[in-house]
């Protein structure tokens, strides 16, 4: 377990943050009728399902939820030794003229979001795309900004933000690992680091 002062969000705080984000989404879009939700695999997808469940509680509306893998749209595919394992994108609804809520766990460089935006636009022309992230840790490399944020955390570039979700790791927690950042170099292949950004 992480040291106590490294915990950023515990289970209750995560739940409250998601509830607030849900209310903000509903307020901003005047209800849930025009919405579709797309979660970025893997943890963003779990968060997307939770937000959809909260919308159901509050408004009584079932919002379509899609899952998106951005592997095929990455900009670093050819700089790695092994290709990232691609997973299935499941968007079983039209996005045309809908308000798309894109959900990611940790917003960092913005490159994942850039890939996701490109992919959504290949599915159709939405009225808007809005971005929700549970954690915004800064260090953007592209001009991308979230519309809904759970928590803003100042970090050093080589820190790692780790998110656990009940559906995958059995507990809900966000904590920070200092100075253990990702080392993406040409010689040592980037490993699939679950939930670490």
């Amino acid at each position: 377990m992480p040291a106590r002062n490294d915990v950023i969000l515990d289970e209750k705080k995560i739940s409250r943050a998601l509830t607030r984000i849900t209310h903000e989404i509903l307020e901003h879009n005047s209800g849930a009728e025009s919405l579709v939700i797309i979660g970025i695999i893997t943890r963003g997808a779990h968060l997307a399902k939770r937000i959809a469940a909260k919308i159901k509680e509050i408004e009584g509306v079932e919002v379509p939820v899609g899952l998106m893998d951005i592997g095929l749209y990455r900009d670093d595919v050819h700089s790695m030794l092994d290709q990232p394992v691609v997973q299935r994108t499941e968007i079983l609804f039209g996005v045309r003229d809908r308000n798309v809520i894109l959900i990611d766990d940790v917003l960092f460089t913005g490159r994942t979001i850039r890939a996701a935006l490109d992919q959504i636009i290949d599915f159709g022309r939405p009225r808007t795309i809005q971005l929700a992230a549970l954690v915004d840790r800064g260090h953007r490399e592209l001009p991308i900004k979230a519309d809904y944020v759970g928590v803003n955390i100042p970090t050093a570039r080589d820190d790692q933000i780790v998110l656990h979700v009940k559906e995958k790791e059995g507990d809900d927690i966000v904590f920070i690992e200092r100075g253990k950042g990702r080392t993406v170099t040409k010689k040592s292949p980037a490993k699939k680091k679950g939930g670490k950004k």
Partner: protein
Amino acid sequence: MNGLQSRHLLGLENTPAEDIQLILNTVDSFREVIDRRIKRVPTLRGITVLNLFYEPSTRTRISFELAEKRLSADTINFSTSTSSVKKGESLRDTVQNIEAMKIDMVVVRHSSPGVPYFLTQCMKSNIINAGDGAHEHPTQALLDMYTIWKKYGRLDGLRVVLIGDVMHSRVIRSNIWCLKTMGASVALGGPSTLMPKEVERFGCDVYTDIDKALDGADVVNVMRIQLERQQLGMFPSQREYTNLFGVNSGHMKLLNKNYTIMHPGPMNRGVEITSKVADSNKSVILEQVTNGQAVRMAVLYLLSGRKEEEGE
């Protein structure tokens, strides 16, 4: 399980089960892409692929070309009839000249076995075998695997029968290696004159009586009888082949209840397979063609990251 062990796809004889499974798993994502309205992803942007076809092909060439285009790769098509091969340029000089124009991957079909391997020795590109003589046709076998795997959810323990010209068929060879690696039980059926001398080396059950071969099978993969390769008189007449080895609806009762009919194409209807069988609801022949495109996308994707210096 993080990537393929090789940076080329030459054949399946020595391809480990983990690699085959990785390819099959990856195909799912690309099946989803080709069902989209915009059937294109930017994954291979900036990669140039040469389609080097020294032998005629419709299905495989179009399938590869579409797969490359759907991954946003740049493609060049080479066919012998319109090239300097007519002027007597050697294969080695031809490919080295094309590579000097900066290409990254080569898809090759050739009538001589071993040409894809030869290319790995004189080029830096990733090489994909699209059929070399009677040796192997790995992407065809992989798409057969994927089609079976999607239908039954597994490959191990299934009984698969391959019927046709075992001696000349590269599709049969690739299928045998792959099926055995994945734990399926394989039976071969065909005329004894079209069985290679060392057929037992494959480790399959060999039958010259098609009824025995089909008995209790889950999957029947019928191969085209290659009329262009029958100049040697390996069987007396096409009609006799049809009578003895043609698959017809009467055979279906010999198979397991949940059986599947496959054919890699192009079909000689009424020769190795009757239209009734080929068009029945147990036939997945067109499904194979669609899957083929996704399989080729997966192979291109998985190999494209592997540069030379990082080799095997």
